[in-house]
């Protein structure tokens, strides 16, 4: 196993993937706790579809680094999703479905009339660790560090807003501002993570670690710490297995996450008995 790890690490693209993967998995898991508890689990899925639409259009018009367009684009859509979701006319799950399917349709339509469904599009859909350029890595690292720092700075306010929005408002917190912050940070992580995980799979690294940790841990702090650990472990085990068995990295990471979810569910049962 050790020699395989050494061999893996001799490849520059794997070094890049591991650096980005650890940071993205960690940040996605931290945000996932609040998103799952606030019943916003599907926002990750919706935003990844939006990211796909913007990335394909950017590629079609010849933008060298589509991330430069995708980051502000998906961030704007995240705020838009919350605004529509808060209106009384359209509920939040409907607004996610509305915006994500529209963005996906635009992406597919643009692809059809330009490059066609080539390998690049497959990489967008299902992820590829080969797809990350040096500049992608730089952006991903910077964005992930910003997300992690903001999460720590606003940790106690995010707890208050997630647990009881009414109480938080009465205590003088601008709860809408913190909900928007979670959505914007999620948008950033989705965009930088979807190159590796793929549009179809990225939302799982937001949802799985939080749900897994909630099986066993009962305090907010321990759930947050456990989610980060579960997510990073799933990523590292996933990328190792993907390398050995030559399977899609994104899919392997999701399956490792599923295994840990099952394991934690069994532990929960044993504890309760």
């Amino acid at each position, binding site marked *: 196993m050790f020699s395989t790890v050494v061999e893996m690490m001799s490849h520059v693209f794997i070094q890049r993937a591991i650096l980005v993967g650890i940071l993205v998995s960690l940040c996605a898991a931290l945000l996932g706790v609040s998103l799952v508890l606030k019943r916003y689990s599907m926002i990750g899925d919706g935003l990844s579809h939006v990211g796909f639409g913007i990335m394909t259009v950017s590629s079609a018009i010849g933008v060298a680094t589509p991330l430069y367009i995708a980051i502000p684009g998906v961030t704007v859509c995240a705020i838009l999703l919350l605004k529509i979701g808060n209106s009384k006319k359209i509920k939040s799950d409907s607004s996610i479905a509305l915006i994500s399917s529209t963005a996906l349709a635009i992406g597919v339509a643009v692809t059809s009339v330009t490059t066609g469904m080539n390998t690049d599009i497959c990489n967008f859909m299902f992820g590829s660790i080969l797809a990350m350029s040096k500049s992608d890595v730089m952006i991903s690292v910077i964005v992930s560090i910003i997300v992690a720092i903001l999460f720590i700075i606003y940790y106690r306010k995010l*707890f208050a807003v997630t*647990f*009881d929005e009414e*109480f938080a408002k009465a205590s003088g917190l601008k709860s809408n501002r913190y909900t928007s912050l979670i959505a914007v940070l999620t948008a950033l992580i989705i965009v930088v993570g979807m190159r590796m995980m793929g549009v179809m799979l990225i939302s799982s690294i937001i949802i799985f670690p939080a749900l897994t940790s909630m099986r066993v841990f*009962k305090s*907010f702090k321990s759930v947050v710490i456990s989610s980060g650990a579960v997510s990073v472990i799933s990523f590292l085990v996933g990328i190792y297995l993907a390398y050995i068995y030559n399977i899609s990295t994104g899919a392997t990471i999701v399956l490792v996450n599923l295994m840990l979810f099952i394991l934690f569910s069994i532990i929960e049962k044993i504890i309760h008995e």
Partner: protein
Amino acid sequence: MNLIEVRKLNYSYPTKKNTLKNISFEVEEGSITCIVGENGSGKSTLIKCILGLIKGYTGEISKDTTIGYLPQKSAIQSSFPATIEEVVLSGTISRNVRSIFYKKDDKEVANEIMKKLRIYDIRKKSFSDLSGGQQQRVLIARSLCASKKLIILDEPTNGLDPSIAIQIYKLLSDLRKKEGLTVLMVSHDIERALKYADKVIEIKNGQISYEGQPSEYKLGGEKNV
């Protein structure tokens, strides 16, 4: 001394005209005031105006102190992973909104309140594992962290067994006697509100239909304005 004074308060929701009409009353320091009335009469809207959660009303609301608030229970809380200590400590957030971490005095205030409400020894227990009555005790502790002087509660005994509801009323009554706490609460539970309150305010169709001593309030009969 009055901790809250409401004068000629009027408020309309965009979809419902005259939700609150010409409401005036005051909350005296060290008293328990119960706002009663049917569903949709405007009780919760009234306390949200006092708390500043609703803007756009006309009239005057003056508050002499910070307010601790216990909102109606939300569905999220029943399975939320949080310890009693985490929940109670979050009540101190209004004391140092700009600070990144809880300060030493925040923790001291939370510990002192948890001891008073006899939940300190179980502070590491999960909030979601508690019974409905114990959860309300924890949420009252949280509101006391925001203000030891005045708390506003929205239907605190909703969904609780009558025996547990009595315990909540007794707890509030004890805090009033021993700590000089002032309580303003909205309640459906008129029978118990009459027993424990110093003053009852009944809201009917957005207006005060009774304000005064519980002993003079006539259940289901003619009301004195």
